[in-house]
C-alpha cells in the first residue's frame, strides 16, 4: 500500500443539528429534546453563520459535508435544502463531494429518504445501536429493531449506496448471543459501513444516575471485552475493513469526512457545539441553542473556546490521531509537516511500544497491532511528551 496516499482530500464541513425527539440515556453530546419551537430560527441562524464565515474561510474547496447531531433529520427537506443551497452559494464544493447525514430509523420514511437523496446527499448514517428491542427501549431509542432494518432497506431502495450504522456493545443485559444476532442482521442488510462504540457512562447523563442507583446493571468488564472481540472478528469475517479503530468499511467505503479528523486536515464546523480545526487553531461554538442563536442575531461569533495548537502539542496530536487509522503514522509525513526528526523525538517510545508488540512498522508507517488497537489509549498517551 502506498502510505503517502492517505485519502484525506480537501477540507471538510460539519453542520450540527442539536435536536432530538428524545434524548438517549447515555448521550452527553450537545443535543436537546423539546426544542421544536426553535427549529426554524436555529436553521436560519445556521445559514447566517455559514454565509458570514465566508470572508474568514476563503475559497479553498470542500469535498465533504457532514450533517451531524442530535438528529439532522428532524429538519424538513425544505430546511435542509435551504442550508445546502447556502453552502453551495457561499463556498467552493468539489464535484465529487461526499455529503453525509445522520438519521434516526423510524423518523424517516421512504419519501423523506428519497428527497434526501435527491438533495445530493449520498451517504447516510443510521443510529442503530442494536437490533434487540428490549435494549433499544432501555436506551430510550425511539425506534424498534424492525424499523431500523426497514430504514436501511428503504435507504438502499431510494438509491443510497453508502449506508452506515452505529453499534454499541456493553449494553445493560447484553450478552454474546445478542452480539451474534446483531452480526447476523448486519450481514443481511445492504450496508457498507459500521461504527462501533463501547457504552460509556458519562457524568450528568440519565444512564449515570441509573447505574448509580443500580436500576441499570452493566455487563462485567470481562464480558464487554468478549463482546468487543466477537464484534471486531465478526465484522472482519464479513469483509469489513477496520480502517479506523472504531470504524469499519466494505470495499473502500470509508468515511472521507472522518478521515480528516485523524490525519490533520482542516475542518470547519457550523452550528451549536460544532468544532473546527483550521491551520493551528481548534475552536468550538457554544453548545447551547439559544445563546448560539443570540450570538448570530447580534452579529457576534458563536465561538466560545479557542486553542492555538503549538509545538509540541501539534505533533503529539498528529501522532496519536494518525495511529487510529490503518494508514498509520508515517514518519516522512511527520517530518515534512513539522520539520522535526521523528525518531529523535519518539525513538525510545517507538522501541518500547514495538517491544510490547503494540506497534508494528510496515510500508514506511507505524501501525497499531490488534493488541495495540485494544489498548490504544495507552499507546496514544505515550506520544504525549509534555
Amino acid at each position: 500500500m502506498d502510505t503517502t496516499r492517505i485519502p484525506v482530500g480537501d477540507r471538510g464541513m460539519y453542520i450540527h443539528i442539536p435536536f432530538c425527539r428524545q434524548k438517549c440515556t447515555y448521550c452527553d453530546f450537545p443535543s436537546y429534546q423539546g426544542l421544536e419551537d426553535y427549529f426554524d430560527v436555529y436553521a436560519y441562524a445556521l445559514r447566517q453563520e455559514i454565509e458570514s464565515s465566508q470572508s474568514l474561510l476563503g475559497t479553498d474547496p470542500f469535498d465533504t459535508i457532514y450533517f451531524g447531531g442530535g438528529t439532522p433529520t428532524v429538519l424538513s427537506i425544505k430546511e435542509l435544502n435551504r442550508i445546502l443551497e447556502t453552502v453551495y452559494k457561499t463556498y467552493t464544493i468539489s464535484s465529487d463531494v461526499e455529503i453525509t447525514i445522520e438519521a434516526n430509523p423510524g423518523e424517516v420514511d421512504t419519501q423523506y429518504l428519497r428527497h434526501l437523496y435527491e438533495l445530493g446527499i449520498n451517504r447516510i448514517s443510521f443510529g442503530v445501536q442494536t437490533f434487540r428491542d428490549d435494549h433499544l427501549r432501555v436506551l430510550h431509542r425511539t425506534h424498534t429493531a424492525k424499523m431500523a432494518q426497514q430504514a436501511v432497506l428503504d435507504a438502499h431502495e431510494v438509491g443510497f449506496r453508502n449506508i452506515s450504522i452505529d453499534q454499541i456493545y456493553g449494553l445493560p443485559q447484553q450478552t454474546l448471543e445478542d452480539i451474534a444476532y446483531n452480526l447476523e442482521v448486519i450481514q443481511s442488510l445492504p450496508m457498507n459501513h459500521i461504527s462501533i462504540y463501547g457504552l460509556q457512562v458519562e457524568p450528568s447523563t440519565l444512564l449515570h444516575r441509573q447505574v448509580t442507583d443500580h436500576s441499570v446493571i452493566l455487563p462485567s468488564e470481562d464480558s464487554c471485552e468478549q463482546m468487543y472481540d466477537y464484534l471486531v472478528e465478526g465484522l472482519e469475517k464479513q469483509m469489513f475493513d477496520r480502517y479506523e479503530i472504531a470504524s469499519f468499511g466494505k470495499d473502500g467505503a470509508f468515511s472521507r469526512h472522518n478521515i480528516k479528523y485523524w490525519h490533520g486536515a482542516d475542518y470547519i464546523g457550523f452550528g451549536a457545539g460544532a468544532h473546527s480545526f483550521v491551520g493551528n487553531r481548534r475552536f468550538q461554538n457554544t453548545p447551547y441553542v439559544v445563546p448560539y442563536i443570540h450570538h448570530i442575531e447580534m452579529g457576534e461569533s458563536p465561538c466560545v473556546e479557542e486553542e492555538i495548537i503549538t509545538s509540541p502539542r501539534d505533533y503529539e496530536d498528529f501522532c496519536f490521531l494518525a495511529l487510529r487509522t490503518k494508514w498509520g503514522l508515517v514518519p516522512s509525513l511527520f517530518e515534512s509537516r513539522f520539520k522535526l526528526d521523528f525518531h529523535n523525538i519518539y525513538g525510545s517510545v517507538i522501541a518500547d511500544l514495538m517491544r510490547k508488540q503494540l506497534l508494528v512498522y510496515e510500508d514506511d508507517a507505524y501501525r497499531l497491532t490488534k493488541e495495540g488497537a485494544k489498548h490504544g489509549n495507552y499507546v496514544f498517551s505515550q506520544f504525549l511528551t509534555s
Partner: protein
Amino acid sequence: MSTSHIRNFCIIAHIDHGKSTLADRLIEETGSLTKREMQAQVLDSMDLERERGITIKAQSVRLLHTAKDGQEYTLNLIDTPGHVDFSYEVSRSLAACEGALLVVDAAQGVEAQTLANVYLALEHDLEIIPVINKIDLPSADPERVKREIEDVIGLDASDAILASAKSGIGIQDILEAIVEKIPAPPDHSDKPARALIFDSRFDSYKGAIAYVRVQEGSLKVKDTIRMMHSSKDFEVTELGVFTPHLLPVQELPCGSVGCVAASIKNVRDCRVGDTITKADNPAEEPLPGYRKAVSMVYCGLYPTDSKDYENLRDALEKLNLNDAALEYEAETSLALGFGFRCGFLGLLHMDVIQERLEREYNLSLITTAPSVNYKVYKTNGEVIEVDNPAKLPPPTEIDYVEEPYVKATTIVPKDYVGAIMELSQDKRGEYISMEYIDESRVSIVYHLPLGEIIYDYFDKLKSATKGYASLDYELIGYQQSPMVKMDILLNGDPVDALSIIVHKDRAQLRGRALAEKLKELIPRQNFEIPIQAAVGTKIVARETVKAWRKDVLAKCYGGDISRKRKLLEKQKEGKKRMKAVGSVEIPQEAFMAILKVEN
C-alpha cells in the same frame, strides 16, 4: 546581669491535653503578642505541625512577666514534642530548662506518654509544676486526676494548678508558680562561655542558626565562637531572642535562651548537642550532651525520578540540621536505583520526614517498607547489623538473628484489657505486668518485638480500644528470633525493595497477605504478572495480576479532538507515579504494601 530574674521552663503533656493552647495563652497573657497577632497555636509553626495537631520541632519563646513582687522576670518557654517518637527531642529541650509544667487533662487523666516524659524530666532534676487543664469540661474530675498524679507518678499534687487554657482560667497562677517554684539558672557568668545547642535551623541568608541555652559565661555579637565538637571558629553576626518574633540583641547572658547566627555555611558545623565556647577563652570541657537519638525504624527513600537524587541528598542534609535524629546514608537498590537508607525515631517521624521532603522540597519519593535493625550472628563468627532486608545474608551464612525488643506500656480503660492482651499476644508479645491506675484504668506492660510494633500495631491498638489507649515504648535490648527474609518476585524477578524480614512462623501468612495486597495495588499491564512471595527457594504465596483490559471505544463527536486529548493526558498523569522495575510498572504505594495488609 544576674540570672535571678530568668526562668527556663518547658511544658510536658500528652497529645491533645492542651499544651499548645496553654503556650498560646501564656504568650497572650504576658503581652508578648496582641490578640490580633495571635495566630492560633503560635508555637506550632510548621504547616505539618498545625495540620496534624502535633509538635515536632522544639521552639522557644521569651515572655516578660511582672510578678506579684513587682519585679519583671524573663520566662523562657521551650516547647517540647508530645509524641512518643520524639522523646529524644524532649530530652534536648529538657536539658535547657530548670523546670517543667506537667499538663494533665482533667477528664482523661495521666497517659502513657505523660509518664515517659515526666520520668525524663525527673532524670534532668527539673522542678515539676502539675497543671490540671480543661477543668471547665463537664467531664472534668480534677480530684481523681490529682490522685492519679500522686499514685502513678509519685508527685505531690496538692498544689496542682487548676486551669483551662482555652478559657484563660488559672493562667496568672501558672505564671506566678513559674517565678516562685522554678529555680533561677545558676549564675556562672564569670566562667568561660559554654552554650548548649539544643536545636538548629538553616536560613538561606544567615546560614546555620543555633538555638542555645547559655549555661556559663555569655555570648556577644562579634565574639569569635568555637564549636567544641568540630573545633571550628566563627564570628557571631547576630544574636536574638524570640518574643515570639525574632528580636535582635547584643548579648545572650548566662542563663538565657536565644539564637546565634555566625555565617555558618556548612550545616554539619552546627550540630545539635554540641557546645559553643569562645575562641579567646575556651572552656575545657563541652557540656554533657543528652541521650543520643536512637533510630528505631529504617526505610529506603528513593526519588521517583532518578534525576532528583542530588536534590534528595541536599534536602536530607538540610532537614538533618533541624532534626539531628534523622540518620541517612546512600544506598542502591537494583529495583529503585540510587537512594538513601534513613533511620527514624519511629513511624510518625518517618511520615513527617517523608512529607516534609515532598512538600518543602518538592520531591516525589518512593518509600520502602520500614524495617528495624537486626543483629545477625554469622557462622564465621562475624556479627553484623542489618536494617535493610535486602542485605540479610543467605541462610547458610547465618548462625542466628537477634531482633530488638521494647517494653511497651499501654494505659487503657479496664474494659479493653482483653483486647490489648489479644493484640499483644498476636504480635508475639510477652506479658510482664498489669496495674490498676484507678478504679477504671489499667496500665499494662508487655515486651514486644519492635518489628511487630512498626507494622500496624498503632492502628490495631486504636481500633481495638476505640482510641482510648495510650502507648509508650522504650528499647530494652535484643532477643534471638527465627527471622527469615521473604522475597517478592514480580514476573519471576526478585524486587529487592519489596523484601521483608519476617518471623519464620508468620512468613506464609504474611506472604499471602502481601501478595494479595500487591495484586490490588499493581495495575494491570499488557501482560500477565505473577506475584510470588518466597522464603529462600520456597514459594509461600502466589497471585497474578491479569493482563490489562481493552479500552472502551469512544465516539469522536464531530471532531472534538481536545476531549480525546484530555483523556490521554489523564491516563499519562496516572503513569507518572509509577516506577518501572524491569518490565513491570509499580506504583509508589506498592512499596509500602506490607503496612496495609491484614494479618
